[in-house]
């Protein structure tokens, strides 16, 4: 069960981050998911990303809904608060949490059922608010906990273990997010940690709504021949459009890039995202271009991955609402109460 703690044995030379913590300090309880589940690889990438960013564990908030994916916050960073909410409603809870305290780092972990079926409304509206959070969809095309029904992200023609192939159109979270105005949109694959870690780091640093759609095969219900969300299918058709490097604030861009291939974008805290484009003509700052490219890739049967779109200038929910800089939850009561005299003045309006 998820409360089983992992044994803590660390090598004395294990790397430490800016806080002096090791990657072990960012681990959580032992996973209770099936052996080989893509979600566990994503958990590992998450741990690596928050470790490398040097986020204080208790300043991180882990939010989720219901489903296999939503269990995973128990499996990373035990010293962070977690909020395992109700099915499909993690976005609203995170909105409230962020409204009260915008100083924490929010990771929301969801799945294709949680985000694209029961929670489609909340998924859409949290994007509209440009809530400052990293929103991960662990996308496997099936309902795991209820034993393998198609989800809304199942592709047309994909086959379940039993029964007929899926005939309904899938909802693609990436193109949906482009349409709804998300400001950081990426797709990854649980089997490619090297690509995932910088994508997560960028998503955590980006000030605004960052979506990471991560193909994460379900080994028990959707990893067979004929499935379009299996490990083998994903490996065969996935295509890096853009490799992304994350460069922390004050660090220099050291890697050498060919002319026209690299494109650095500076984030609000001075860190940089460097796009390494495998297609020279791709412009990740153009919403229209990203949408068109994505549509074309579907025609080609490709699963394109990488950071597909970024807009680092739009304000988040608090900017849009005009909130004070201090987290609302930490404003002393004295500053919130207008007092006796003011009430008397207000009363004069109602005489």
């Amino acid at each position, binding site marked *: 069960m998820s409360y089983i703690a992992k044994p803590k044995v660390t090598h004395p030379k294990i790397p430490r981050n800016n806080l002096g913590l090791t990657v072990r300090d960012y681990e959580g309880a032992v996973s209770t998911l099936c052996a080989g589940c893509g979600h566990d690889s994503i958990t590992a990438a998450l741990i690596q990303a928050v470790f490398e960013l040097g986020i204080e564990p*208790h300043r991180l*908030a882990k939010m989720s809904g219901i489903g296999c994916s939503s269990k995973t916050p128990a499996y990373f960073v035990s010293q962070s*608060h*977690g909020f*395992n909410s*109700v099915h499909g409603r993690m976005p609203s809870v995170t909105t409230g949490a962020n409204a009260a305290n915008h100083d924490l780092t929010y990771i929301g972990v969801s799945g294709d059922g949680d985000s694209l079926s029961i929670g489609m409304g909340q998924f859409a509206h949290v994007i509209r608010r440009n809530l400052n959070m990293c929103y991960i969809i662990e996308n496997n095309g099936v309902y795991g906990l209820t034993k393998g029904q198609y989800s809304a992200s199942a592709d047309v023609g994909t086959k379940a273990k039993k029964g007929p192939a899926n005939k309904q159109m899938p909802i693609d979270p990436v193109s949906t997010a482009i349409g709804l105005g998300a400001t950081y949109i990426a797709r990854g694959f649980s089997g490619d940690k090297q690509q995932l870690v910088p994508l997560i780091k960028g998503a955590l640093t980006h000030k605004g709504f960052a979506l990471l759609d991560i193909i994460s095969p379900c080994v028990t219900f959707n990893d067979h021949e004929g499935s379009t969300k299996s490990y083998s299918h994903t490996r065969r058709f996935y295509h890096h459009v853009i490799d992304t490097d994350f460069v922390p604030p004050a660090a220099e861009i050291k890697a050498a890039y060919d002319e026209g291939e690299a494109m650095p974008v500076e984030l609000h805290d001075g860190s940089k995202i460097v796009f390494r484009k495998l297609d020279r003509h791709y412009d990740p700052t153009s919403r229209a271009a990203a949408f068109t490219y994505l549509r074309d890739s579907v025609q080609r049967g490709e699963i394109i991955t990488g950071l597909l779109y970024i807009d680092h200038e739009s304000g988040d929910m608090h900017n849009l609402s*005009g909130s004070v800089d201090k987290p*609302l939850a930490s404003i002393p009561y004295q500053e919130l109460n207008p007092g006796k005299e003011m009430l008397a003045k207000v009363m004069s309006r109602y005489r």
Partner: protein
Amino acid sequence: MSRVNDVVIKIGTVNGTGSASANGLLMKAIFRMGVPVVGKNYFPSNIQGLPTWYEIRVTGDGYQSRSDRVDIMVAMNAQTYAKDLAEVTSGGWLIYDSTWPRSNLLTREGVTVLGVPLSRMCNEHFEGARARILMKNIAYVGVVAALLEIDLEIITGLLEETFAKKKHLVKQNQDAIRLGYDYARENFTCPLPVTVKPMDKTRGHIIIDGNTAAGLGCVYAGATVGAWYPITPSTSLMDAYKAFCKQFRREEGTDKKKFCIVQAEDELAAIGVVLGATWNGARAFTPTSGPGISLMGEFLGYAYYAELPAVIFDVQRAGPSTGMPTRTQQCDFMACAFASHGDTRHVLLFPASPEECFYSAIEAFDLADRLQTPVMVLSDLDIGMNDWMCPELQWDESYVPDRGKVLSAEELESMTKFHRYLDVDGDGIPYRTLPGVHPKGSYFTRGSGHSKYGAYTEDSAEYKEVVDRLLVKWETARKLVPGPAIKYSKFNRVGIVSVGSCDGAVNEALVRLKEKNIGLNYCRVKAFPFSAEVRDFIEKHDQIYVVEQNRDAQLRALLMLDLEIDPARMVPLLHYDGMPIHAGFVVNRVLAELAKGQAA
């Protein structure tokens, strides 16, 4: 027959023609003469074009509820003329716009019909269609003022205040009032046998609606996050919160907001936002009505089990389903008390007036934080949207919010290990921590089965331990919630138990019954779970009349469930047609029940 300061004026108009300001003006003028008033707005679920009524009860005795009488009908809406005429109490008057002739059939014996050519006069005097329509409504204020001897100077003063920034409108409105006033003085015997005479009974009082008072209460309670989905009749609560925040919650120098309002995509999201915010230490609330409570069900159960504070205002309207959105009822007691699946129960507060909405709001935040559970404030359309005369709201500067058992960084530092759901103090309320405060404070908030340590569990004993402890907390809640308001008449074996907006009607009925030598004791419950005094009161009586505004006797059912009272002792007196209850109903029903008792 002549009466002073005891008259009911009802005005029938068309929605969207500016009659609201005319009616408000009339009511406020009487209030400023020192005479208590009750105002009720009977409006359609519509923006423009449907019939709407406003009723002003002038009550020198200071009663709080509407009357079942209409003395003066201002029938401005030809569409409802016949209905309006039928509603006038015998011996009363009807004023209509005589610009267009009316059939003789549309008169009634015992009702004096007074025609005033309002449209013609306004068309001759004012330019532009809009002004003519609006001024026609202001002009009837002048007619009523002349007939009842309402002080014109007070009306002028009110106009000057209202249009302080649009001076030209003062003149226009004054002219319109003059047209009506002069016409009435010249053509009718003024005043009528019923008049309004100055008194000194409104000093220290205000006229305010419950939603405004509740919104103001949220500001004073220190709420910083408000989430909502607009729904009649609760919308004006968030409007009020927003308006007061704009005034009082701006950061000096930057003008930035010390509040955050989230207009959510639906009520499910609204309550989700509230829970996220309280989890993170803010005071947060959501105003809604019955349909919103239905949608919030799952999250309310979550908050009960995961033990998160939340404040929900349910401004009740007539159900079931969409029901009648602009009509009042007290029909959500059961839905709120047990909102959500599983063994779930919630703390409810029942304000009876706008004044109590203000104080209940503050109390609700304190209770929610103390008990770490949702607290629902059950107002209704009558309290929430109608203008009530009530004592000025007072603020006690010594008030300190009760934020409940929240561990600080220092406290956590000194602890070996923190466990979320331990009953350390024996009151059933565990200690909680806020994210971001201290690494030792972290825990996993979940709606799934958990042990007292906060860990996931499917173990029977561990599960039971937590849900049983929640019952201990429930008994603590019973001691913390406000007790009932009890009035003993004299030794009597019969009593009334009632709730919320029935209070005015019950109090007035008690006076009327006393005049017939029937003295009843009265207990108004203010919260659920019911405190010990409620049980004591009921147990002292052989028979209890439970007065409430719903079909299914929901308060009575709650009393049975929570206090295990014998149903045979509680007779339901139910008013549920969507209009606010009035004293006549209570008197008649009590008399009928007493007669039954004697016959038996």
